[in-house]
C-alpha cells in the first residue's frame, strides 16, 4: 500500500535503510520493530494479507498460566526437535513468548477467551501443558490482521506485488535487491543498507502440501544463490491431518480438543505408537504412524485414515473449529458433526532455512532472515505445532531491531552496479524471446512427483539417489524452457517460471542433506538407518551454493541445559 494509491515508482537513487522482503507475520513484525526514524519498506509478491501466515489455524504457544513455566515450554520444544534445536535459541523463544502474545493482545488480537476474560489455551502436539493460545481455528488470521492493522496505523510503506528475483551483494555486504514490479513487468533495482528476508516456506516442491501456491521458497533460493548457506534442509515436516485431494490442513487443534484418529478397523491406532500422548504426539510421530497404517493396509481406499470429532459435540466443533467445519463441508461434502473426516499426511513446513543467529543475522553483513525461511534454529528436526507463529513474531522483531542497530553502525550502503541490473534484465529479455515448446508446467509436475515419492516421510539411499538424478535431469530441461506469456503486465507465467528455478535449487539441497544424514531424527526418517546417532549426527548441516551443486558443511548444535535423551511419548 502506498501513499498515493498509485503503483510506486521506485527511484533507483533513493536508498532505504531497511528493506524487508515478505509481508507475512515475520516480515511485518520486523518492519514494526525498525526505528521509525529510519526509512523502511516492505516488499511482497502478493498483497500482504495474501501471505501464508493468514492460513495458520491452531494456535501460538506461550507459557502464560501461572502453573506453566517457559522452561517447560523450552524443554518440550527441544525434545520435540529431537535435540537438534539450538537450545539457547529455544530458550530465548520460549522466554519471550508471553511478551509476544501480550503485545498482540494489546494491539487488538481477538483471542478466544476463558470465562474470566483471560486468553484461552488448548493442548497441542508434544506439549506437557495446554499452552497454545488461539482464536478459534483461525489464529493465524487473527494475529496477522492485527499486525497488518498495526502496520497501517504506523504508516509502514509496503510495495505490494513486487517480486524479488535477486539479492545484490557489493563490497562483501548487502546492497539491495532486484525486483519485478508485477503490475508493469519492469525490473527495478532497490538499494538498501540492510535487507531482511521473511519469505516463508517452499511447500510447492511437493505434490501433497498444505502450503499456498506462493510458497515457492524464493527467499531461500535467492539467499542460497547469493552465497548464504542453508541449514538443515533435509527436515521437512509432514502434517498428519490434511484433507485428501486438496490437502487443506485440518488443524492439530482438532486433536488437541480431543479428536480421535481411527483406521479402517476402527482402531485408535496411536495407542501403539505413542501410548502416553496418543493423538497429540509430535507431528513426525503421528505422520509416520498414519503412513505405516496406510502401508500396512489398514487405511481407507482413498489413502486416508479417519479423524473422528463426533464425540466433541456440535457446539465445540462449530465454535472452536469453525474453519475446518467449513473446509470439510466445502471440499469433501462431509459434516464433521455427523461423520469422521478422512485425513492423510501432507507437506506442511520446512524446519530448515537460511542459517541465522539469535538476531536473524547471517554470514552476509546487513542481511537478515526471520520466519519460516530462516533456521535459527528453534525447530531442529521437528517443529512443534503452534511454535512457528511464535517464531515469526519473536525472531521477526529480533531481525528488525538488529537491522536498526546495523544501520546505526554502518551508515553507508554500497551502490548497486548497473551491471548487476543488466545481467538480470538480459536474462529476462532472453527468456521472453525464447521460442520453445518446453514450459515450466511439466517440470513442476515431475518435481512434485519425485519429491513426494522419493523424499517423503520414509526415505532411503536408493530413492534419494533416484531423486538426485531426476533433479539433475530437470535442471537440464529447465535451462532450455521458456514462457508462453510474452507480455509485461501481470506476467504470472514468467514469475512461475522463475519460482520453478528456485524450487529446483532448493529441492537439491533437501536431497543432499537427506543423503548425508545417515540416521533417523525427527521428521527425517531413513529406512536404511532407523536409529538416531547423536555421536555422529548431533550437528547441523549447512548447504552452500556452488556451480556443481550443493556443498555440504556442518555446524555444532548449541546445548545449554537439556542433555539429549531417547525421545518417547
Amino acid at each position, binding site marked *: 500500500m502506498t501513499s498515493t494509491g498509485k503503483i510506486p515508482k521506485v527511484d533507483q537513487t533513493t536508498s532505504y535503510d531497511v528493506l524487508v522482503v515478505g509481508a507475512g507475520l515475520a516480515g511485518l513484525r520486523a518492519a514494526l520493530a525498525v526505528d521509525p526514524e529510519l526509512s523502511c519498506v516492505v516488499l511482497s509478491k502478493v498483497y500482504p494479507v495474501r501471505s501464508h501466515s493468514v492460513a495458520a489455524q491452531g494456535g501460538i504457544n506461550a507459557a502464560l498460566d501461572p502453573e506453566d513455566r517457559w522452561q517447560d515450554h523450552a524443554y518440550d520444544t527441544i525434545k520435540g526437535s529431537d535435540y537438534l534445536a539450538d537450545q539457547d535459541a529455544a530458550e530465548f523463544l520460549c522466554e519471550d513468548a508471553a511478551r509476544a502474545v501480550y503485545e498482540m493482545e494489546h494491539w487488538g488480537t481477538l483471542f478466544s477467551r476463558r470465562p474470566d476474560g483471560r486468553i484461552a489455551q488448548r493442548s497441542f502436539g508434544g506439549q506437557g501443558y495446554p499452552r497454545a493460545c488461539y482464536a478459534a481455528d483461525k489464529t493465524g488470521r487473527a494475529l496477522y490482521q492485527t499486525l497488518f492493522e498495526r502496520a497501517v496505523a504506523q504508516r509502514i510503506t509496503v510495495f505490494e506485488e513486487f517480486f524479488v528475483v535477486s539479492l545484490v551483494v557489493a563490497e562483501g555486504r548487502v546492497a539491495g535487491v532486484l525486483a519485478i514490479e508485477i503490475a508493469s513487468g519492469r525490473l527495478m533495482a532497490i538499494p538498501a543498507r540492510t535487507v531482511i528476508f521473511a519469505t516463508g516456506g517452499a511447500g510447492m516442491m511437493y505434490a501433497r502440501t498444505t502450503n499456498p501456491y506462493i510458497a515457492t521458497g524464493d527467499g531461500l533460493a535467492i539467499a542460497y544463490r547469493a552465497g548464504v548457506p542453508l541449514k538443515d534442509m533435509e527436515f521437512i515436516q509432514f502434517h498428519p491431518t490434511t484433507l485428501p485431494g486438496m490437502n487443506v490442513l485440518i488443524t492439530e487443534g482438532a486433536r488437541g480438543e480431543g479428536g480421535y484418529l481411527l483406521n479402517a478397523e476402527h482402531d485408535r491406532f496411536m495407542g501403539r505408537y505413542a501410548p502416553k500422548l496418543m493423538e497429540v504426539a509430535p507431528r513426525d510421530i503421528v505422520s509416520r504412524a498414519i503412513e505405516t497404517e496406510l502401508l500396512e493396509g489398514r487405511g481407507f481406499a482413498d489413502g486416508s485414515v479417519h479423524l473422528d470429532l463426533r464425540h466433541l459435540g456440535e457446539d465445540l466443533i462449530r465454535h472452536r473449529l469453525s474453519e475446518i467445519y467449513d473446509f470439510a463441508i466445502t471440499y469433501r461434502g462431509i459434516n464433521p458433526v455427523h461423520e469422521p473426516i478422512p485425513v492423510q499426511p501432507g507437506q506442511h513446513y520446512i524446519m530448515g532455512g537460511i542459517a541465522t543467529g539469535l538476531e536473524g543475522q547471517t554470514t552476509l553483513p546487513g542481511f537478515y532472515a526471520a520466519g519460516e525461511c530462516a533456521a535459527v534454529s528453534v525447530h531442529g528436526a521437528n517443529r512443534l505445532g503452534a511454535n512457528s507463529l511464535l517464531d515469526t513474531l519473536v525472531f521477526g522483531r529480533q531481525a528488525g531491531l538488529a537491522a536498526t542497530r546495523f544501520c546505526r553502525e554502518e551508515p553507508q550502503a554500497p551502490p548497486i552496479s548497473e551491471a548487476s541490473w543488466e545481467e538480470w534484465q538480459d536474462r529476462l529479455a532472453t527468456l521472453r524471446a525464447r521460442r520453445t*515448446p518446453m*514450459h515450466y*508446467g511439466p517440470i513442476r509436475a515431475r518435481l512434485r512427483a519425485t519429491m513426494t515419492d522419493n523424499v517423503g516421510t520414509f526415505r532411503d539411499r536408493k530413492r534419494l539417489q533416484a531423486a538426485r538424478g531426476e533433479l539433475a535431469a530437470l535442471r537440464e530441461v529447465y535451462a532450455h524452457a521458456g514462457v*508462453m506469456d510474452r507480455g509485461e503486465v501481470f506476467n504470472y507465467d514468467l514469475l512461475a517460471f522463475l519460482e520453478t528455478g528456485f524450487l529446483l535449487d532448493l529441492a537439491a539441497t533437501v536431497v543432499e542433506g537427506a543423503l548425508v544424514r545417515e540416521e533417523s531424527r525427527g521428521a527425517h526418517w531413513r529406512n536404511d538407518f532407523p536409529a538416531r546417532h547423536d555421536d555422529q549426527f548431533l550437528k547441523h548441516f549447512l548447504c552452500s551454493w556452488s556451480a556443481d551443486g550443493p556443498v555440504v558443511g556442518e555446524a555444532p548444535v548449541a546445548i545449554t541445559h537439556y542433555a539429549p535423551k531417547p525421545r518417547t511419548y
Partner: protein
Amino acid sequence: MGRGFKVRPATGLKRHPAQTLATYRTGTWAWMLHRATGLLILAYLYFHLIVLSSDVWFKGSADFNRVVGELTAPPFILADLLLFVLILYHALNGIRIMLFDLGYGIGHQREWFWGLMGVGALLMVAASVALLPLAHL
C-alpha cells in the same frame, strides 16, 4: 505446448462488466423497487396537486362533484389501486428497513420481506373490496 484453445470475439462485451439483473437478490430487488415506488409516488404527488388545483381553482366548486364523479370511473379506480400498491409496497418495505435500522430482524431479511409482502397482499384485497364498489357510482 499443451492443448489448443479457442478464442472468440466477445460481441457486446463491455470493458467493465456491468452488474446484470440476474445477479440481484431479494435485498437488492427490494431496494430497487423501494426507490422506484418512492420516486413514482413523488411524481404522483405533483400530478395530484396540479389536477386538484386546476379543478378547484379554475373551475370552482360546482365542478368538483363532476370531477369526483370522473375520478370514480373504473379506469381511475384502477389507477387509484395502482397508487395504493405503490404506497403499500413502499410503506411496508420502509417498515422493514426501519426495523433493520433499529436492529430487529436483520438475520431474517428475506423472511421479513416475504412476510410483509404477504401482509401487503391481504391489504390489497381489502382495499379492492372497499374501492371497487365505488366504481359503480
